């Protein structure tokens, strides 16, 4: 495609009052070598007249469009000219709203940004989607409980073929074991019959759903659109092809045999699961002699929110105990149910159920720490508790004690096994072998063919719950095309699990639809570019394969890396990692960013600082600060990057050899409390830059000239100050000595 350039400068929103537009046009024509008649201005470029101006030029053959107006994060639809290469230069948020109007420094700033935009389009090319052949748009759902069944039904009703895989002989999971369900409808005062059996019928008769019971996943290979899944059932195996996977493997109750301190082991102390079984059978009785129970004590958080057992809240147990209290009351109106809780936690609408149950005369509640279950001598038990609302130390007689045990995600077993294996592996092959032989292997769920391991990873500090980007994209795991839903990723009640299932089904559908169009799945859901390495120069150093957070790059038998492109999220971490700089995207490459850095106007009297800003958090934060009109030092030039993980070290050389005085990297926060969109980009950048400092010192350049800052979007109001402080620090250090060379 031969490029015909058109540069359009908007004068609206204060740009015309901050920058001398005539001078900007003139210097763009000279500096970026664009014909003067291809550089146009308009009072309000996003108006229909302004857009008409651009559209007319497109009709005349203009195909490479540089728009100097507002942030690319706004007016997205107005400036979407499909078929043309479009670059947005952020004159409003990065110049007009943050700089002193009509000064020399502001003018140079605007001219630099336009020049950088032009260079980006000169070096870049129109992206063409990479659509792999023989894609499947069928889905697989692993787990046939309420979550899996709902996910299967939602997808099937949306027109997608689904294979539903269940390990047990029957569908339904825990929800099929319930006597009654907590109310589903306003006013949330009456228990409902389990809904699961209707849903099972619906699933089993649905033309789009194939149910595979007593079936395990033996192997999951491939990539979104092209997963090859080997299923095994009663000794026979079969491989199916699916486009995306919803993993709803559910949970197991916490092992009550570890709750001896709460009396478990005594026949009259049962778990909430056993209570469901008892209620389903009929009367609520004292198991030791079958006498009808009239004083039933419920102990909440039995092993939950307890550092020695499960440190987290299992979310549904309060609702379940309130429901079971109603079993007690409905089966015998003279009976009382006494609930000892740490805090009643009834999320969402279940709060209304709590209020209704609280109003029941025979449902008695108190906060308290149960300290012991002791024998009352008559076959009954004493529940002893401290710090209750009724007194500091109390005891109350009960003929039946129900422990509200929490949930353990099905992913925890495999995760612990794998962690153990890694630990053993560190001690050598013998230790590893001994571990494998001496440890019972739990049921694995997906058996993934990924270099990062055979299961969905779990977050650090998440107690074995499946991966989930809980801040922005809760169903997303680090394995593109595989979505976790329900209690396997977070404790939740049945209605939440059903909602979760619908969400995960939509993500799975998004996945198969996007790969069919050759677009990144998420979070860059508009992006048709993809990493395109010049393999001839590859040295097989494996840095890209090691660093890709999504397992998108593997080595073939000869050790040469290859992409499974549908796993890729287009973060560019491979591009940042590659020492040979062979990885490029059509609109984002080592050369493009390097050239943009080199395009910055350098003169001996002024300082220049480059800020490489992560597009996910830092860039929108800068936009937000600009909306507040918080001033930025005009020495700063901001260049967006997909992820700090894409930062190639050569840009440091590019910057300092050109005469740039300082380089700042703005990336996401990493660590347990924050979730980087590309998982570990800023962490990797930090690691790489720790090495840069040594290099800078060797060159007798102060290592302070280069700084990485972690910022979250909510810190936008502090960001301008952080940047301005950095510029001041650079001014203290003095000009870059390479400037004169």
């Amino acid at each position, binding site marked *: 495609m031969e490029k015909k350039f058109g540069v359009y400068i908007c004068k609206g929103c204060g740009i015309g009052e901050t920058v001398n537009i005539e001078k900007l046009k003139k210097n763009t024509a000279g500096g970026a070598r664009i014909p003067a008649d291809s550089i146009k201005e308009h009072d309000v470029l996003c108006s229909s007249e302004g857009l008409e101006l651009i559209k007319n030029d497109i009709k005349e053959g203009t195909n490479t469009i540089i728009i100097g107006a507002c942030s690319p994060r706004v007016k997205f639809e107005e400036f979407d000219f499909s078929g043309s290469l479009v670059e947005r230069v952020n004159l409003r948020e990065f110049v007009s709203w943050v700089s002193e109007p009509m000064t020399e420094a502001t003018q140079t700033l605007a001219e630099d940004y336009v020049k950088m935009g032009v260079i980006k389009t000169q070096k870049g090319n129109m992206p063409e989607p990479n659509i792999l052949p023989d894609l499947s748009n069928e889905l697989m759902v692993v787990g046939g409980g309420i979550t899996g069944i709902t996910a299967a039904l939602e997808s099937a009703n949306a027109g997608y073929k689904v294979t539903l895989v269940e390990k047990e002989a029957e569908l339904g999971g825990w929800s099929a074991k319930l006597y009654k369900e907590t109310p589903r409808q306003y006013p949330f005062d009456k228990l409902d019959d389990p809904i699961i059996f209707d849903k099972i019928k619906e699933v089993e008769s649905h033309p789009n759903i194939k149910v595979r019971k007593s079936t395990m996943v033996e192997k999951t290979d491939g990539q979104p659109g092209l997963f090859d899944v080997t299923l095994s059932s009663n000794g026979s195996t079969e491989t199916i092809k699916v486009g995306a996977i919803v993993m709803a493997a559910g949970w197991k109750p916490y092992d009550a045999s570890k709750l001896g301190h709460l009396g478990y082991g005594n026949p009259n102390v049962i778990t909430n699961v056993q209570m469901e079984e008892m209620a389903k059978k009929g009367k609520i009785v004292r198991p030791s002699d079958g006498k009808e129970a009239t004083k039933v004590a419920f102990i909440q958080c039995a092993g939950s929110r307890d550092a020695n057992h499960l440190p987290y809240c299992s979310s549904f147990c309060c609702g379940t105990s309130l429901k079971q209290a109603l079993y007690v009351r409905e089966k015998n109106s*003279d009976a009382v149910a006494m609930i000892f809780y740490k805090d009643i936690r009834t999320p969402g609408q279940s709060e209304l159920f709590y209020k209704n149950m609280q109003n029941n005369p025979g449902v*008695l509640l*108190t906060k308290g720490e149960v300290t012991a279950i002791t024998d009352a001598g008559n076959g009954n038990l004493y529940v002893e508790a401290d710090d209750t609302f*009724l*007194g500091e130390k*109390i*005891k109350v*007689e009960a003929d039946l004690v129900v422990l509200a045990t929490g949930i353990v995600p099905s992913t925890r077993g495999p995760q612990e096994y794998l962690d153990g294996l890694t630990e053993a592996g560190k001690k050598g092959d013998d230790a590893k072998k001994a571990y494998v032989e001496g440890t019972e292997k739990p049921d694995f769920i997906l058996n993934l063919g990924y270099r990062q391991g055979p299961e969905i990873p779990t977050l650090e500090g998440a107690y074995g719950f499946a991966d989930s980007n809980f801040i922005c994209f809760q169903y997303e795991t680090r394995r593109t095309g595989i979505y976790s839903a329900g209690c396997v990723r977070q404790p939740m009640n049945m209605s939440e699990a059903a909602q979760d299932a619908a969400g995960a089904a939509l993500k799975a559908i998004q996945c198969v639809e996007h790969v069919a169009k050759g677009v990144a799945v998420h979070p860059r859901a508009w992006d048709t570019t993809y990493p395109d390495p010049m393999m001839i120069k590859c040295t097989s150093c494996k840095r890209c394969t090691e660093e890709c957070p999504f397992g998108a790059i593997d080595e073939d038998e000869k050790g040469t890396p290859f992409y499974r492109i549908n796993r890729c999220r287009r973060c560019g971490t491979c591009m940042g990692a590659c020492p040979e700089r062979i990885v490029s995207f059509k609109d984002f490459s080592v050369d493009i960013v390097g050239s943009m850095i080199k395009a910055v106007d350098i003169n001996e009297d002024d300082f220049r600082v480059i800020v490489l800003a992560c597009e996910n958090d830092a860039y929108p934060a800068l936009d937000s600060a600009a909306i507040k009109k918080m001033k930025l030092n005009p020495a700063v030039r901001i260049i967006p990057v997909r992820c700090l993980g894409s930062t190639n070290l050569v840009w440091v050389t590019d910057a300092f050899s050109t005469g740039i005085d300082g380089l700042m990297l703005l990336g996401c926060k990493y660590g347990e409390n924050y979730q980087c969109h590309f998982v570990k980009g800023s962490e990797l950048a930090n690691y790489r830059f720790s090495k840069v400092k040594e290099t800078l010192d060797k060159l007798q350049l102060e290592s302070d000239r280069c700084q990485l800052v972690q910022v979250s979007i909510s810190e936008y109001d502090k960001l301008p100050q952080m940047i301005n402080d950095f510029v001041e620090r650079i001014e203290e250090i003095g000009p870059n000595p390479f400037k004169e060379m």
Partner: protein
Amino acid sequence: MTEQIKPDLNFINSVIDAGGESLKKCFQCATCTVVCGVTPDDKPFPRKEMIYAQWGLKDKLISNPDIWLCHQCSDCTAHCPRGAKPGEVLGAIRKMTIKHYAAPAALANMVADSKYLLMLLALPVIIFLLVIASQGHLTSFPEGKIVYSKLVPIPFIDGIFTAAAIFAAVAFFGGVKKYWADMSKGVELKGDLASAVKETIMEIISHKRFDKCNVTKDRSLAHLLVFFSFIGLAITTTWCVFYLYGNKLLGIEKFAFFNFGASPYPLYDPLKIVGNISALALLTGITLVISNRMKNKDKAGEGSYFDWIFIVVIYVIAASGILSEVLRLADIAALAYPMYFIHLVFIFFLFAYAPFSKMAHMVYRTTAMVFAKCSGRG
């Protein structure tokens, strides 16, 4: 020491039935205790009373003086985030305390239950009809100038009301004795009883506690009017006794403005002035009580039958008393005598059933306040 808690479902249900139907809504946030202006700082109420009631811990409530330290300002009810109305619940528990200590218990149950109202009214109606019949006025009103003793002669009045008062006093005495004994269990009394009584009386006269209320602060004036008009009417009644028996037994004749002898007395008589002012104050006070309750019902709750029957009885007494006098002066016998009859019936109702009705609050609350002062919670 570990204390054994014994939940009592029947007690929970009876608190609910007694007007504490919002009881179970409490989730123990303790906003009530924080906003309460009259609770002591140590072991404050009404948060703990709410959970005792939710768990049916009768023993911890019935003999608990805190129940009576509460003046039902309803600040707690107005601020309760859950609509649990602690003020109403404590009111219900007070009613149950009155029932618990009153003997005979059957009578207590009847006073608290609207379905026995007619039966309770029937007793004074029959008594006074019998007296009237004995005077031969069942079918015709007395002749001549309206004098109420023609309808019910004074010895009957004295006899009937003295009997009612003695019955009430005996019932009160028994109840308070038991109550004091229950409260004293396990509590060390340090204060001096006489000074506690003195302080309590001063506190009641000044209505100091009512001033700590916010939501229903108008109640102070209403209660003050009712309270002092009762005292005024008690003085008037005693004064009547002096006039009557001073003349009859000691032969004191009328002098200056003082009209010794039998009623009716002229309007300028100081006795009459005190009586009439007290009657008007009572009517004003009780009308204010009603209007305050209507005004505050959203914030403070509607109150129970137990509350309302007491208010209505006082209202009828005040209104029928004033009307009896007005109709007598207007010389309308056909209305005046029936009005006086109504007046007598309701006064009997108030006196005879006092230990079982909300009237008992004056005795139990006073006792609890004295006890609280003795035990350092005043």
